[in-house]
Each structure stands twice: as C-alpha cells, then as structure tokens.
C-alpha cells in the first residue's frame, strides 16, 4: 500500500520538510501568485483594448478572434521556450506567454458581455440624456459584468495551471517545487507544490466568484414569475 505519512525513507510527504522549508514554500507561493496577477492584469488590459476595437469596428471582431485563438493554440512549452533566447530566463519570458493565453477567453467574454446588453436599454439610456461615456460606464459595463467575471475566473484558473509549467524556465512558483522534487528524487516538495497549486486555483476561483456576486446583486435572486 501507499504509506502517505510517516518516517519511511521516502514517503509521499515528509512533514518535517513542510515545517523546515516553510520559507521556501512561502516564497514559491508568493511568486506563483505574483506571476498570475501580472499575467492576468496584462491580459486584461490588452483584452480590454482589443474588445473595445472589436465592439466599435464590427469587422475587426473576426480577425481579432482569429489572432487570440491562434495564440491560444501555441503549446505552452513551445511559447515559453521561444521567448527564452530573446528575453532570457526572466519573468518577462513567463508573463508574456501567460498573458497571451488569457486573451482568447477574456476578449470573447468581454465582447459577449457588452453584446448581451439589450438594444432598448441602450436606447433608453441615450434618450434620457446620457453621454456615450456615461452610458458605457454606468449601464453597459455593470450589465456585462457577469460575463467578464466568468472570463476572469477561467483566465485566472488556467493561468495558475500554466504558471507551474513556467517552472521549466525557472519562473514557476509552485512549479519549481515540483521540478525540484523531481530532480532530487524527493517527493515531498512535488506533492506540496502540486497540491498547493490546485488549492490556489480553487481559492482564487472562489474569490473571484464571490467578488462577482457582490458586484452584481441584481443577478442573484431567482427570477420571480408574476
């Protein structure tokens, strides 16, 4: 059977490791979090811009979708690898591909969100004397929020997963623990790295989900039939 804990020479988890190397674990966790946040933020900013273009100039929607989809299909190992000769084993080599992978889901969802606003709501807003800026900010954006939040959840969760892969170029946060453990034939860090990254993904997902619900009180109650 599989002894999960205990003093056997090479258990799955050696708990002393957990306590001794807590510093290292903490650092890996923080690095993981930082990379995720940088990548998603960059991705969000670029996506916002691309979405604005796609919404304003309808004909650019298909090409933009094509480009973001194409980026998404490039295998992660390949993309991380290609950047290394140009940017070295740096954070940039990790953040750029990670951000690129979020573009597809974020642009798709932002555009879908704004497209979900009924035309009569827009007409009513204009008719009441809202400037376009006010209408977009106060009416369309809140109504697009559910879609945007969903997109963010997916982007964050998949980025957390991909950050572990970035360990291959030395920027992996918790992924480094995994690789480290593999190299040293020491399983504890592998397990911890893996479990923590899964937990981190779930935690961030829940966090964004909660924030989303807080931001959209009108979408929360069940629809009442009258």
């Amino acid at each position, binding site marked *: 059977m599989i002894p999960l804990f205990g003093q056997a020479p090479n258990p799955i988890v050696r708990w002393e490791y957990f306590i001794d190397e807590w510093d290292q674990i903490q650092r890996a966790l923080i690095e993981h979090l930082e990379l995720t946040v940088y990548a998603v933020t960059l991705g969000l900013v670029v996506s916002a811009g691309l979405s604005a273009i796609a919404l304003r100039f309808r004909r650019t929607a298909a090409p933009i979708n094509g480009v973001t989809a194409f980026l998404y299909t490039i295998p992660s190992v390949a993309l991380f690898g290609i950047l290394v000769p140009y940017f070295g084993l740096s954070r940039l080599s990790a953040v750029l591909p990670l951000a690129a992978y979020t573009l597809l889901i974020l642009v798709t969802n932002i555009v879908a969100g704004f497209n979900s606003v*009924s035309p009569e709501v*827009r*007409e009513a807003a204009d008719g009441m*004397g*809202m400037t376009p800026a006010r209408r977009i900010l106060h009416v369309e954006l809140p109504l697009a929020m559910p879609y945007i939040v969903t997109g963010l959840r997916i982007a964050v969760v998949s980025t957390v997963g991909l950050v572990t892969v970035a360990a291959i170029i030395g920027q992996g946060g918790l992924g480094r623990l995994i690789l480290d453990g593999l190299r040293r034939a020491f399983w504890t860090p592998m397990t911890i790295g893996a479990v923590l990254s899964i937990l981190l993904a779930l935690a961030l997902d829940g966090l964004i989900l909660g924030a989303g619900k807080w931001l959209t009180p009108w979408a929360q109650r069940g629809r009442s039939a*009258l």
Partner: protein
Amino acid sequence: MTSLNLNIEEGSIVVLIGPSGCGKTTTLRMINRLIEPTSGRIEINGKDVTHGPVAELRREIGYVIQQVGLFPHQTIAGNIATVPKMLGWEKQRVSDRIDELADLVGLEPSLLDRYPDELSGGQQQRVGVARALAADPPVLLMDEPFGAVDPIVRTRLQDELLELQARVGKTIVLVTHDIDEALKVADRIALLNVGGILEQYSPADELLAEPANQFVEEFVGEDRSVKRLQLRTVADIPFHRGPVVAATDGVATARSIMREYSSEWVGVTSQNVFLGWVHGEDLQDGLPLESAPRSVPAAQVQPGSTLRNAMQIIMTSHTSAAVIDNGGLFGGVVTLELIRASLEAETGP
C-alpha cells in the same frame, strides 16, 4: 421624408399616427434628436434646440419606449432616479420625488426596492413613465408606450395617462398605430402618410366628422360615425324631459303627454327620483299614478356615459329611451333620435 411642419400646443397631447413608413417614429425621435434632422428647426418654448449639446436637451425631455428599457442592474427606485442624479439633485430631493412619482403613476411603494424583472408588464410601463417624468420635464415623448401589454392593461394605462395629464399638464407627443387609442387620448391627431406627408392635423372629433381627403377617410375607418359616438358623452346632449311626469301630475296629464310624444309608455317620478315606466293600458282613471304597475328596472345611463354606450343600452330597452341617472335624481331622457341629432350639430370642442 418630406418636410414636416408641426405646431404643438403646450399642455396638450398630440398623437402621431399613420401606416408603416409614414415616419411617425422618426418624427418623434427627431424631437429629442435621437435622429438628427437633415434640415429644419426644432423649437421648444421658443428656443431653437436643433443644434447644441444633445445630452442636456434630452435630460429636459421625457422619453418612453414600447419595451421600456428599464436598467436590469438597478432597482426601480434607482431607475427612476437616473436623470435627477445626472442633474445633481440632493439625495433627499430625489427620494421625495420618487415617492411622489410612485403615487402619481400608481406604483406600490413596496416595488421601489425590487428589480425590473420582478415586475409585470404593466408595472414596468408605469415605471417607464415615472422615470421619464422624474426630472419634471416640460415635454414627454412616448413611442407606442402601451403596445407591449395586453388589451385590458392597455385600456387601464390609457385611462391613467389621461388622469395623469389632468394632474400635471405636460406637453405630450405620442406615437401609436392604434386609431382607437389615438382617438381616446389625443387633444389633436397628426395623421401622416407614407413619406412623412401630413394629411390632417386636427382634434379627434374633427378628424372623424370632417376627414380632409380619401386617405384620411379610409384610415379612420368606415365606422367613423360610430367612433364619434365614443368621443361624446350623454352630458353633451341638451336636457330633454321626454314623456315623463311627476306622480302628483295625475293620470290625465300622463295621458296627454303620451299622446304628445306618441309614446306607449309614460315615466313617473316622485320628488325628482325616477320610479319607472308605466304602460298606457295600465293607467286607471281615479287611481294615483304611484300605484300603477311599473316596469323596472329602467334602462339607465350616467351623464358620463359615452353616446355609444347609451345607444347600446337604448337598443336593448323596450321603451326605446334611456333614463339619465344624475346622482340618483332624474336627469332627463335619451333617445336614438337625440343622439343622431347631436352628431349633426357642430363638431365638438
């Protein structure tokens, strides 16, 4: 669209109506410049608003559309407060105004904290009107506002609109495709033909009584005389006593009145309260009129009943006359002949 010239009196309800493609909605939306006119001027209260900042203009004009367009992400109160907030009103003033409007449009206060999707179609329409009136604009534009609700609710909303107008006296421009709705609510009707040609611009009764051309005639329908009957009430007819006597007048007077009117029946009142109709055969000399067998209940109408209703009631009564019940007292008699005569009189106000 061809050019259009329209003068709308302050405090009146003008209805734009016409077949598809006549540009009634386009015209309406040119007033608040959702569609910019290619040439010409729009003047409100003498001020030229054709150019200049458009958002400011629209905040002074109320706008109600068929699907309402309530903001799903805000409560009813939030929706209504939209324009006042844009104009910078303080919280208390906004809150008071919301309560005032809820009362004005007939909205229960408990609904104010709900979201639009929790309300019925009729309630949503009322919110739309409240929202349009929130900043107390002098002008209100309505584009087929009652088209999306069922006929029963629609009738009620139309009545409420008229009551509302009696209280606040806005200048209202309303677009509809329903001629009956137009006839019911309008002070003046602008009938447009395809291409934006104004065929006639006059009060409802005049439109029916004196259509300007064949297009108008066909549009209002062949039953326009009957439609006119809906526009007038019993009170419009001059008082006509008819074959009715007081109980104290006696049988002889009764008989002579019946001869005068060539009527088989005579009506009997006591202290100016109508008691019923008595058939000539049941009159007995020497007996008081009160004791004669009477036919009740009599066909009755109110002063506020439309002539059309009166006509319907008369047709089903065997005395060919309806008694006007003026708060319990005898108010005269209505016959088909009287109704017909009133149509021939000058067209209404």
